[in-house]
């Protein structure tokens, strides 16, 4: 593997200073499950890896009445092992359970998945559906970016040289809300999404009408997409097959899939509609307090 230096600072300030010194030749190392392979095959050529796992701010995992704070370096297994996330931010737990196998989940972080900015990243549609905001720190101070505005192209994002992702902040979940992430892959596990869909809904007290909804799509464009109009269209609509089918049709309008070895553009377009319907129905079931059978591996 390429020769590089390694540092593991324990403060955010030290990490930012190090990153500043090495400019664009430094990379942040969290779980390393994407990064180490990318350095090994030569796709990335850093001179310095900054291990961020010892920085307290990046290990925050805090669920309260104000919402959820998820440090950028928290690994997937801690996400789906957290009762508060499983009950209130279920889509995120759904994502973390299917990113790689168990060995990968021991190390891979949601923050890393976002910063790697893959179009098919399994956690990003859930982050968008759950209204996550990325807290970024850098030499010029801190800023916040909504996750739907974070990725700018395959492997590209808004982070400037010297900046790093500190945490993801989620608003508190309201009553009668539910969420789900679902993807299509030809295998049972360990595969890259052909299409992935995140959905989050809020229902009225009678649970027969949508108050609001957010839908997001993965692997159908150069970046994960926020299907805003499709979700907004559900507000005030009755909860039934017809309104859900209309939302799916509206979500398909923004999908711009390509044909590759995982699927043709046509197939992806079709699957997008199917998955939006299923993700919405599962999110509705959860909002009603029903159990959704997301059997592992199915």
């Amino acid at each position: 593997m390429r020769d590089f230096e390694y540092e593991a600072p324990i403060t955010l300030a030290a990490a930012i200073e190090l990153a500043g010194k090495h400019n664009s030749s430094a990379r942040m190392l969290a779980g390393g499950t994407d990064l180490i392979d990318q350095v090994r095959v030569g796709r990335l050529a850093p001179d310095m890896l900054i291990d961020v796992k010892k920085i307290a701010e990046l290990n925050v995992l805090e669920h309260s009445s104000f919402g959820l704070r998820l440090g950028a370096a928290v690994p997937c297994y801690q996400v789906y092992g957290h009762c508060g996330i499983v009950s209130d931010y279920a889509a995120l737990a759904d994502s973390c359970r299917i990113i790689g196998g168990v060995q990968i989940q021991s190390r891979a972080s949601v923050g890393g998945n976002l910063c790697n900015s893959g179009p098919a990243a399994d956690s990003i549609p859930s982050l968008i559906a759950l209204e996550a905001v990325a807290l970024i720190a850098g030499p010029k101070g801190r800023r916040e970016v909504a996750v739907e505005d974070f990725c700018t192209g395959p492997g590209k994002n808004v982070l400037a040289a010297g900046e790093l992702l500190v945490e993801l902040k989620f608003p508190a979940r309201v009553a009668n809300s539910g969420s789900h992430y679902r993807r299509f892959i030809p295998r049972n596990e360990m595969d890259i999404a052909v299409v992935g869909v995140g959905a989050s809904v809020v229902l009225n007290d009678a649970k027969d009408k949508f108050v609001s909804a957010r839908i997001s799509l993965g692997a159908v464009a150069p970046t994960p997409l926020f299907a805003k109009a499709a979700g907004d269209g559900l507000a005030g609509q009755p909860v039934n097959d017809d309104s859900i089918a209309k939302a799916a049709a509206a979500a398909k309008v923004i999908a711009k899939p390509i044909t590759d070895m995982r699927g043709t553009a046509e197939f992806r377009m079709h699957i997008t509609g199917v998955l939006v319907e299923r993700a919405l129905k599962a999110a509705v079931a959860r909002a009603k307090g029903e159990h959704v059978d997301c059997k592992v591996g199915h």
Partner: protein
Amino acid sequence: MAKKRVVTTTLNGNQTEFLCEPRQTLLEVLRDNLDLTGTKEGCSNGNCGACTVILNGRPVDSCLVLAVEAEGATLRTIEGVATAAGLDPIQKAFLEGAALQCGICTPGFIMQSEWFLSQNPKPTEDEIRFNLAGNLCRCTGYDKIVRSVQDAATTWQDHYMKNCHEKGCH
């Protein structure tokens, strides 16, 4: 060349120090520097699980860990599984169930299965398959492997329940 680092770990119960370059993976250091060749290299990119070791109580692909990251860590490799009293139950089950042919994948399967049974001593078949999704075998086929894990769980249930209670996971 980047400066070599001294890394101190507890490896299979023994305090172990090694010298490594930042660019060396834990897999490389185990095999090439420490001569612990039980841990295998299949793909070197996190797909096959042949390199699975237990790092601070969690299974990881050691090809995707830098050796310098293991500073202060507790590590367990296949060399630490059998005891003076003999093979571990999961090893016996793999032997009896003919759950290996060439054996390259076996250390990874053993590490992953042993860890899993310590967390979940009474798994369903689906749970076993899901847990082993990150381990590939190119010759045996998975049925014998899954059946051996099931056998280990039923034949040695007391063993796993006891380990599990000691760890306080139930």
